[in-house]
Structures are given as structure tokens and as C-alpha cells.
């Protein structure tokens, strides 16, 4: 009975937090496929894009299921320009017009577009269709720059990058992405931690509260049985001076 009490003590914590754990695993959140441009931690880069000018990032990889892009822009004038986002790669060419932006404001722009359905590498461009200019926000701090080249109307701009995140369209729970997560976790291990090994590891860790409850319950039961066998209700001193 004492073992059951120990196991129940452990399970009590699981029951207490079950709601949060379940919500964490099933909450639909962003699913990033790649992040070719990081935000600024300390030093922002503001690239002014006049009407009819383009800014491009290359190389940018579009995963097969990429269907959403996020960029950061600032509208400096009273009237917002029309901004197109273009995704180009061999066999993949999509253009999306950004919904109307608030004038004299800065914010994150999110657009959805058709998936390439296979992984392709190409470029991601911002095209200002006018009539007013727009500021594209990025960073120029060395520690945050990725090996992605920024060009403004074909002219390279060194030591600067623009914020760009590519995601799957919609929200996705961690639980629904388990295969992708395991594959990604295995990707940098040179095959030494293969996906097939991570599956039982993940299962063991997900079941950890249950396993711990059983182990502790068994331990207590055994300890009590040994104690009863000795009959004195006390264990021998574990250590004593020799």
C-alpha cells in the first residue's frame, strides 16, 4: 500500500499539471521552415525602397510546405505604397500583394502563398509598386547576419540583412509535427543519433511521469517488504565506522 501511495504522490503532480501539458502539446503555433533574415538585437538596418525599386534576398530555401512569409516594414508617408513579395526558384514563381498597410506605422507583415510542394532554393524579393516609398527593416549587426545576400535593384548591399521568416501556412501543434521534429533533431548528429533511436527516447521521456511513478512505487514496495522481512522495522545503519 505504501508503494501505491508513493506512486500516487508522483501521479498527483501529473494530474495537477495535465491541463497545461496537454495544451502545450496541442496548441497550434507557428511552424517555421526557415529564417533567412533575423531581427535586430541591438542595431537595426532600415532600407528605404523607393517606388518601383526591388530588394532581394538570396539564397533562400523554400521547404516543400512553406506557405507563409513574415517581414517587417515601416510606412513613412501618409499614404502606404503597394508592396509585392515575390518568391522565385527553379520551377517556382509566386507573387503576393501585401494587404493595405497602415500609414506612418511599423509592423510585421504576414502573407500566405501557394506551397512549392518540393524544396527549392532561389530568391525572395520585395517590390515597391509605388507611389510612395517604404522602409524595409532588418539588421546590420555582424552577429545576426546570415550567409544571405541582400541586393537593392541588383546592387549588393553589404553587411545588412532584412527580417524574413518562412513558415507553414496556419498553425500546427507540436504533437502533429512529431515526425518533422524528430527528423530535425536528428539532422545535425551525423547519423549518430538517428531518428529511429529518437522515437523510443521521445516515448520514454513523454511517459516520464508515469515511469517515475511506477519506479518509485516499486522501490517503496520492495523497501517495505525488506523491512518486514527483517521484522524489526528498522534498516541496518547504512554506514558505520569500521
Amino acid at each position: 500500500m505504501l508503494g501505491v501511495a508513493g506512486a500516487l504522490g508522483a501521479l498527483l503532480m501529473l494530474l495537477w499539471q495535465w491541463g497545461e501539458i496537454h495544451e502545450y502539446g496541442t496548441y497550434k503555433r507557428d511552424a517555421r521552415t526557415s529564417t533567412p533574415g533575423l531581427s535586430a538585437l541591438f542595431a537595426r538596418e532600415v532600407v528605404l525602397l523607393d517606388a518601383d525599386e526591388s530588394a532581394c534576398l538570396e539564397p533562400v530555401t523554400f521547404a516543400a510546405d512553406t506557405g507563409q512569409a513574415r517581414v517587417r516594414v515601416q510606412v513613412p508617408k501618409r499614404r502606404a505604397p503597394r508592396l509585392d513579395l515575390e518568391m522565385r526558384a527553379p520551377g517556382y514563381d509566386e507573387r503576393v500583394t501585401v494587404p493595405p498597410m497602415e500609414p506612418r506605422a511599423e509592423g510585421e507583415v504576414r502573407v500566405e502563398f501557394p506551397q512549392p510542394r518540393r524544396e527549392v532554393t532561389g530568391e525572395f524579393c520585395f517590390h515597391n509598386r509605388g507611389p510612395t516609398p517604404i522602409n524595409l527593416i532588418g539588421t546590420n549587426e555582424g552577429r545576426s547576419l546570415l550567409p544571405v545576400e541582400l541586393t537593392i535593384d541588383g546592387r549588393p548591399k553589404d553587411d545588412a540583412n532584412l527580417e524574413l521568416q518562412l513558415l507553414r501556412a496556419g498553425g500546427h501543434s507540436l504533437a502533429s509535427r512529431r515526425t518533422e521534429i524528430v527528423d530535425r533533431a536528428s539532422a545535425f548528429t551525423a547519423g549518430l543519433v538517428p531518428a529511429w533511436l529518437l522515437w523510443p527516447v521521445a516515448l520514454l521521456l513523454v511517459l516520464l511521469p508515469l515511469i517515475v511513478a511506477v519506479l518509485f512505487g516499486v522501490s517503496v514496495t520492495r523497501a517495505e517488504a525488506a523491512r518486514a522481512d527483517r521484522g524489526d522495522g528498522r534498516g541496518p545503519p547504512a554506514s558505520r565506522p569500521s
Partner: protein
Amino acid sequence: MNRLRPIPGRLWRRLRRTPPVLAALVVIALAHGVAWTAITPPLQGPDETTHIAYVQSLVEAGEGPQVNGGTGQYSRELEILGEGLYVLPITQHFEGRPAWHLVDEVEARLDREGEAARTEATGPNAAAGNPPLYYLYAAAVWELTPDRSLLGRLTSVRLATVVPFAITVILAWLIAAELFTVAWARPLVAGIVALNPKLASIAGNVNPDAFLVMLSSGVLLAALRVAQRGLSPPRVIALVALASAAVLTHGRGYFLAPLALIAVGIALLRERPDRRRALVFGGAALAGILVALYLGTSWTREHAAGAAFGGAAPSSGAFDLGEFLSYVWQFYFPGFHFLDESIAGGYGYNQMWIQNFFGGIVNLELNFRPEKYEAIKLGAFLGMMAVWTTAAIRWRTLRDRWPAVVICAAMFLGMVALLHLVSYTSLKNGTGPVITGRYLLVCIPLMGAAIAFVATSLPRVLGVILGGMALGLAALHAIAMLGFGVERFVA
């Protein structure tokens, strides 16, 4: 089974006697460490690039790196890996993800660069003042692993660092056996260690901390045995060897040297042997420890001019006892009007013992929400009160077991004193507090023992339920941090 016969008979019998629950906890620890190895992108562990550069310096140049000078901070191949896979730039960028899709491209580039890209890593390296023991272990794995690619070597060293973590779980079990007569205290203490996400994550990276935690746990076990069971050549040799190894692993292991001597001193005091036996044991222990300290400080002096405490802090800087005591007081408690403002600024107990011990995993990036830390702080306070109250109620038992009490208290206070001394010295030199939650991991078996002390002191049913609750919370802590790690790096 017959294939395992070549294992020496005694070892084989001992392995077969391993309690199944301990074996299960070791498997859990291995899985926990391997999970962090996989989740944490390469070079993303705390200061991992500097530790890898240290290993590469040993392997490629045949010598440890220098804090000042040298041929380069990192090898060219580490730069290619870090930038090519985006893993260095995304640090502290919570929106950033590594470039999983570029692995083949980066590996092909590394192949093209060849062996020439592996050199130039002899410094300047901030970790160069660390004594070399862990790095020699890592260098052996780096050289011997059959996978010669950079990712293969790096993963091999990470996996090899998980092994000390698993050994720490076994040592925690044995420490509990030394401290408690109640058998279920063993899985409780070992489970607290196996489920600790901070230790598991650091064990999944290239970092000497997990190795140091294993050695400090070994020193604690050996010290308890010497102090409680008495002097014998194997016990004293084990104690001195482990304490020396800890000193040669990290500056934060220096406090284990006096701990070993205290254990021998307690044994001498209890046994009161004849002068010759006292001189042999006491002298041998002292000599062994002094040799290790000499080797450790010599290494640091040679590789990190102007550093002390195994490279953990600068050696220069005026020491003001009053200022030091004021800093330590204000680290834990509000200051008085007659005290000057602490040189630590706002950094104190809450940051180190709560936020950066229970959270702040992988470059301080994985954290709970602030209200969770408030709950943890309250829990920690109640826990301390429980330990204090239990100690007060059971003071006779503690008095009877004074050697164990002295060892545990000396270990804890020694760690805290060294950390604050190093932190104060660093602050005086303007290099920041240099004190964070993972530095407390060397006392993780003691934390488990404190929980077990309270649980085993309660009426049996209540104690068992409390023990189960502690393990259940530890399991949830492990899962929560793994979830945060998955969300941050691979989702």
C-alpha cells in the same frame, strides 16, 4: 550471455546485482542526455564553441589554447559550420531556426576545405585557463570516433559527455545509501539527479560541467565513506584521486580539495590512530591534493596569465573583506541603509538560485513564465524551511551522524564560498558576476539528499507521498524544459 564472459567475474557479478530501479534510472538519464544532444543545435550549448576550440587545439596543435594570443579563436571549420547552418547567428534570436536543409551543403564545403580548416584554434580562448582533464577525455573521443566529419566528432563528444551524467546518477544512489537507512531514499535522490534538465542539457553539450558534477559526486561519496567508515588505503586513494581529478577539471572544483582533507581529518579524529598511521594517511592525502593543486594552478598560469581559481576569475584586484561580506549579504537579503550598494548590482539569489538554476537552459534561452519562477521561489523557500525544521527536530540524530553532517555542510558551504569569492573577484575586475545557476549542479545530489532527509523524517505514508511528489515534479520539470527546447530549436 556467454559472450559477456570476458568481463571479469567480480565485475560481472556486481553488474548483475545492480538494482533494476537504478538500471532504469540510468537508462532515463542516458535518454535525457541524448535528447538534449539532439535538440540543441551544434555550438549552441553554453560557451560550447570555446570548449570545442579547446579540444581542437589539443588534437590539432597538441597543446592547450591560450587566453591571450594563439593562432585563432576558432578553427575555420567551426566558423563554416556555425555560419553555414545559422547556428551561431540565431543565438538569442528566438525567431531564428538552424538551417537543417543546408547540412549536406555545409558538409561538402567542409570536405573541400580539408584538414587545413581544422588548425588555427590555439587562442585567444576564454576557456583556456580551465585545467585539461575533461578536454583530454573529449580529445580522445574526438580522435577515436569512427565518424571523421565535424558533426560526427562533435556529436561523439556530446554523447561521451552524457556518460558522466549517467555515472552521476549511480553515485547519487550510492550517496543516498551512505546517508539514509530507508531504502527508497536511493531512487528518490538518484531520480532527482537523473531528471534534472539543467544537468541533462549541459551533459548533452561539449562542456566540462557534467564531468565536474560526476567528480564532485564521487568526492562526496568517497568523503562520506572515509568520514563514516574510517580510513583504509582504497578509500583514501579513491578520495584523493577524485578530488585531484576535480581540481584538474575545473576551477570550480577547487573547493573539493579541502573537502577531501576535512574527510580525512574527521576519520583521524574518530579513529585516533597511532602517529605513524596518522602521518601516512594524512600526509599522503595532503601530498596528493597539493600535487593536484600545483598541477592545476601551473596549467592555468601557463595558459591564462593573470587568472586564478583554475581560470574562473582574474587573479588581480584588491580584496576588501567588508565589501565582500556586504556583497554576499545583499546577494541574498535586502541591504541596510548603512551598507554601500552591492557591486553585483541587481544580480542576486533570485537570478542565480531560482531563474538560472530551474530555468535559463541552453544559453539562458529556455525559461518559464515569470509567475512560474515566483511559484518555484516560494517552493524553494518552503523547502529550505522544511529542511531547517526537520534538522531542528532531529538534531540528536544529526549529532550522532555528525561526520556525514559535517561533510555535507562543508561541501555545500565550500561551493557557495568559492562561487562568491570568484564572483566578487570578477566583479572587482569589471568582468561581470561570473556566477550562474549551472554552477550549483555540483551539489545536485545534496539537493536530492535534502529532499530525502525531509521525506524520510515524516510519518511513513506522508514521507512516501512527499517523495513521490518531488519525483513527479522533477519529471514535469524535465518534460517542460524538453518541450521548450523542442519549440525553440526544432519546431
